């Protein structure tokens, strides 16, 4: 059989060394390039909370720790393919009968183990860091239901009576402690820009802390399959300055804990804006319905250009305040939120219905 | 023929299979199967654990629903004794004492069915008192665990029934009685399992 195993131990080691050096070189080079590439990729959405930075750092550490392993294995295999592939004439040849090497085996058991435990320890501290309670936290109660989120600002925040809203307003740099509940099935409250998520579980109250630290509007995503409307269970988190936040709270309290702020802007209410943008709390109708006049083309709900003509204003109002009363052919029950009556002021509702009644003509 | 023979089947195609272990395949198979069964119960006990301990809901009596400890206790005694008769039957088979074998199996069947009957009776009473699986999670757990066990008693009885039929048709000899032994093991398992269920659902 193959001559190799008749090598003297010395020849053995020579052959090994001859092959090892270039291998090590290739592995090291490719690993470093791999790490650099891995770090160059811009992985995350813009960080907008104090939790984001440590998590992103941990990510980079993981890239540095694990990419070499992947690329290393990769490079090693390719090297072997190139170096040890069967050449013509070797059809009947075997490799040397090497059964193992204890030192090697110990090394590649211990090193990964140490690496792993190190990473676990580090992650543990990061976890402590991102989940620790902070001073003057603001509590916000989040309720998930098919298929929308409702945010309640308790007395502790409003000073007056609690406020409910379908849009999340939080002041910049203020630690927020979310108490998450669910009315029906599992949902998951996730703000990618803030990196944190937690399931909304029927029957228990789950909690998650985030400290938004960058002004702007960020999408809130439901990350747990909750049924047919799961993909549309999206809302907006508005991070505003403390003043604007107080202003917003005030305006909401005046308007009896329902409408206000947001798009409709108060005074002259425009049904079309309500339809396309919502009133700052209510989900935009356009998010689910196509309506030529409003320039929306979503397909979750019926195409209103088609269905509206057949409806009286009363039916339209009915369909908005109590959508599940009768279900439009071909659509699932309970997708359209049934909370518009709470979230829209009577005036806004009238305006909306009036608008829809006009466009259907 | 020797160990690696097929289940309930005494003839295998050439060449004779190896027997690389002293354990008989049938016994080993049954033991492994029992491990699976234990895990099924394990899962139902998990449900019990979560609802009673983790969710911390209080346990019977709940909302003045009582579980008939005493009746079930008697029932336990019945089942335990059926294990003894089963053992007796097996001994009979081993020593070629057909009378023992038959009567032992019959007694076991009798006791086992009594157990089932009593339990069904208990269900009927409880539901009449209003404790259905639907009124409380505790109810679901109770019916789940005991029901699962009841189903196993039923399976055990069916296996024993087969053994009995064969016994009366003159099968089983002192050196060929696997058909009694294997169902017997299963029956003992069902028995032990009940003791766990009883103590955790009724007593604790």
């Amino acid at each position, binding site marked *: 059989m193959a001559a190799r195993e008749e090598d003297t131990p010395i020849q053995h080691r020579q052959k090994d060394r001859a092959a090892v050096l270039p291998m090590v070189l290739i592995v090291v080079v490719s690993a470093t390039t791999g790490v650099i590439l891995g770090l160059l990729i811009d992985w995350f959405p813009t960080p907008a909370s104090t939790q984001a930075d440590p998590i992103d750092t941990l990510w980079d550490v993981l890239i540095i720790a694990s990419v070499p392993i992947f690329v290393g294995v990769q490079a090693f295999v390719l090297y072997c393919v190139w170096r040890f592939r069967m050449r013509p004439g070797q059809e009947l040849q075997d490799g*040397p009968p090497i*059964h193992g090497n204890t030192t090697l085996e110990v090394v590649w058991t211990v090193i990964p183990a140490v690496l792993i435990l190190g990473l676990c320890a580090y992650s543990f501290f990061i976890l402590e860091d991102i989940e620790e309670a902070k001073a003057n936290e603001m509590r916000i109660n989040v309720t998930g239901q098919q298929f929308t989120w409702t945010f309640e600002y308790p007395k502790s925040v409003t000073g007056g009576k609690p406020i409910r809203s379908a849009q999340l307003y939080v002041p910049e740099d203020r630690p927020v402690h979310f108490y998450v509940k669910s009315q*029906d099935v599992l949902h998951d409250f996730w703000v990618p820009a803030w990196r944190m998520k937690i399931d909304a579980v029927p029957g228990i109250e789950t909690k998650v802390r985030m400290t938004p630290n960058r002004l702007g509007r960020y999408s809130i995503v439901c990350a747990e399959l909750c*049924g047919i409307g799961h993909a549309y269970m999206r809302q907006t988190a508005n991070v505003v300055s403390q003043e604007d936040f107080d202003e917003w709270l005030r305006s909401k309290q005046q308007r009896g804990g329902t409408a206000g702020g947001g798009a409709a802007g108060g005074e002259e209410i425009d049904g079309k804006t309500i339809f396309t943008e919502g009133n700052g709390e209510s989900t935009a109708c356009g998010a689910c319905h196509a309506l030529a006049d409003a320039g929306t083309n979503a397909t979750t709900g019926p195409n209103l250009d088609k269905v509206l003509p057949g409806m009286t204003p009363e039916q339209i109002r009915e369909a908005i305040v109590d959508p599940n009363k009768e279900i439009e052919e071909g659509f699932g029950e309970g997708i359209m939120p049934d909370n518009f009556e709470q979230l829209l002021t009577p005036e806004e509702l009238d305006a909306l219905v009036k608008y829809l009644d006009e466009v259907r003509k | 023929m020797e160990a690696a023979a097929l289940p309930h089947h005494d003839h295998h195609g050439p060449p004779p299979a190896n027997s690389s272990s002293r354990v008989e395949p049938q016994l080993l198979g049954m033991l492994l199967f029992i491990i*699976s069964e234990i895990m099924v119960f394990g899962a139902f006990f998990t449900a019990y654990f979560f609802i009673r301990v983790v969710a911390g809901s209080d346990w019977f009596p709940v909302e003045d629903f009582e579980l008939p400890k005493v009746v079930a206790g008697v029932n336990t005694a019945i089942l335990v004794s059926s294990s003894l008769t089963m053992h007796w039957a097996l001994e009979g088979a081993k020593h070629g004492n057909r009378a023992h074998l038959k009567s032992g199996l019959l007694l076991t069947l009798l006791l086992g069915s009594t157990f089932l009957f009593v339990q069904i009776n208990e269900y009927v009473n409880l539901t009449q008192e209003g404790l259905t699986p639907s009124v409380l999670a505790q109810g679901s757990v109770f019916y789940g665990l005991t029901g699962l066990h009841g189903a196993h008693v039923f399976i055990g009885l069916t296996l024993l029934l087969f053994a009995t039929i064969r016994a009366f048709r003159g099968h089983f000899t002192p050196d060929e009685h696997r058909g009694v032994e294997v169902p017997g093991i299963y029956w003992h398992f069902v028995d032990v399992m009940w003791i766990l269920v009883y103590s955790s659902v009724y007593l604790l």
Partner: protein
Amino acid sequence: MSLRSAGYPRAGLFGLLGLAFSYALVSSIRALYGWDPVVDGEAVARVAMLAVPLFMLVGFGLFDYWFYWAAGKPTRPEDHSGHGAFSWRDYFRPNTDHKVIGIQYTVTSFVFLFIGGLLAMLMRAELAQPGRQFVDADTYNGLFSVHASILIFLFIIPVFAGLANFVLPLMIGAPDMAFPRLNALSYWLLPLAGTMMLLSFFAPGGSFATGWTAYAPLSETSPIGQEFFTIGVQFAGASSIATALNFLVTIITMRAPGMSFFRMPLLVWANFSTSLLVVIATPFIAASQFFILLDRALGFRYFDAALGGDVLMYQHVFWFYSHPAVYIMMLPGFGIISEIIAVKARKPIFGYRMMAFSLLAIVVLGFTVWAHHMFVSGMQSWIRIPMMITTAVIAVPTGIKIFSWCATLWRGVLRLDTPMLFALGFLTMFTLGGISGVMFAMIPIDIHTSDTYFVVAHIHYVLFGGSVFTILAGVYYWFPKMTGRMYDESLGKLHFWLTFVFFNLSFGPMHLIGVKGMPRRVYDYSEAFAGWNLMITISSLCLGLSFLVFAYNIVASWRGGPRAAANPWRALTLEWQVSSPPPVFNFDHIPTVVGGPYEYGTPGAVHGVFKGGARVEQPAGAAVEPSSRE
């Protein structure tokens, strides 16, 4: 074929009987309690889903023997008619020959791969662009739920059982499995389970659409289609438990003389470990679906918080099976790779014993990590810490395997044919999948990436780049032994390169869009991800098409390929020492095992010798003449 003798007609008849039975049972009970309507379609369907398959199996004759036995009738003496397949028809009849069953298993599961994959193609088409393309949300949810369930429960798990069914008894020098009839039964459960899951698409309210995880309470309020999963899984699960028992008993009691545990090929070790996992873990998914069924059918309240139920309990029970399940879907693959790499690198497996022990280590650790799927589920937060550590530690035994395979390549004489290419592809791709797994294990990362496409990427790197690559490697490797024909090498290589490239193009970018914030299980997504998704869709279509090359190669070679030698790879393990395909009873003489399975490179080394001490003679030309020395 008369209706009285076992077979398809009788199976059909019994199926109808089962239907009638369910109808009668339900209606009579409802009549008894005076519920109306006396005929409740859902209830009947529910009972029928359990009864009809069983009735059909009885009609098909799979229980005949046991009925005879039970009734104490003289059982028909075994005439071995149940052994061997002499025409393609024999593959469509109940057969107790492990080789026939192995092929039945393998072919059936590949059919399911194609179906499951086609569903994936539909999903990708829907995801090609934001907004609704051609399926509505409910259909889409159904698509990925069935996609996953089919591919996990009816492709990966059974196909491994199938390959092992064929080679394992041969490898340990046994004439058959320990319980051939049970073996046949476990096979015939599969087509039923799979058909049931697929039929759910025709159920009123659509197919089950709660993911393959079927989380309560969503799975309790969803339409009847859900129960096609709830019950279908029971059959699939029963099948794999039965097979696992069979493997364990076979391995323990039927090894050839001299085949000590540490002389077993690693594939046998792998299936030994896997079977342990199956026997211990599978009952938990059975139970989790029992809970759902009880809640739906009999009004139990396991998951109704208002009545003291606990929603998270479902997830714990489910994952206590389904994490071990992911190793059930990987360990047999590890076994296959060990066989192939040793043979194709012409070297003994590096660190054989550690390879075996690491398998057992994975089995043990596998039971201690389930809650890493629940880091954001709202469970008691302290549980996350121990789970993080155990989860990450699994990287160590797995690493031992990866590194040992690499070391086996070192200074071998690598034959880069199709099986080897897939083996090397596995080596690299699975490493990546495993590493993303370890990233999940780090809780802060998981909090962000859980339920995103990063998970989808991980899933496919471990399940496709891991399991499927090993399966394809195994299929090419044993194809000559199973069919007695040679596959087309160049087509095989083409298949590998297409698959390898488009696999990475399809699932690689999912890592990025996942971290960037695209959630999984959505049929519509924000414009931001449009570009990547289009590219993924296109390449996954090509990935799908690459399977056509495979399909053609297999079918054509099976029908008209060149005859295969008994031992084309010059392998030492026992299955290669018999003709291709093997004789009906595997061995005319039971071999005696005299050495390790991978003694390549040692002149004249053999694994087993046959009666009369005759050295296993290798087919002409394959034998290693001294002349071949450098």
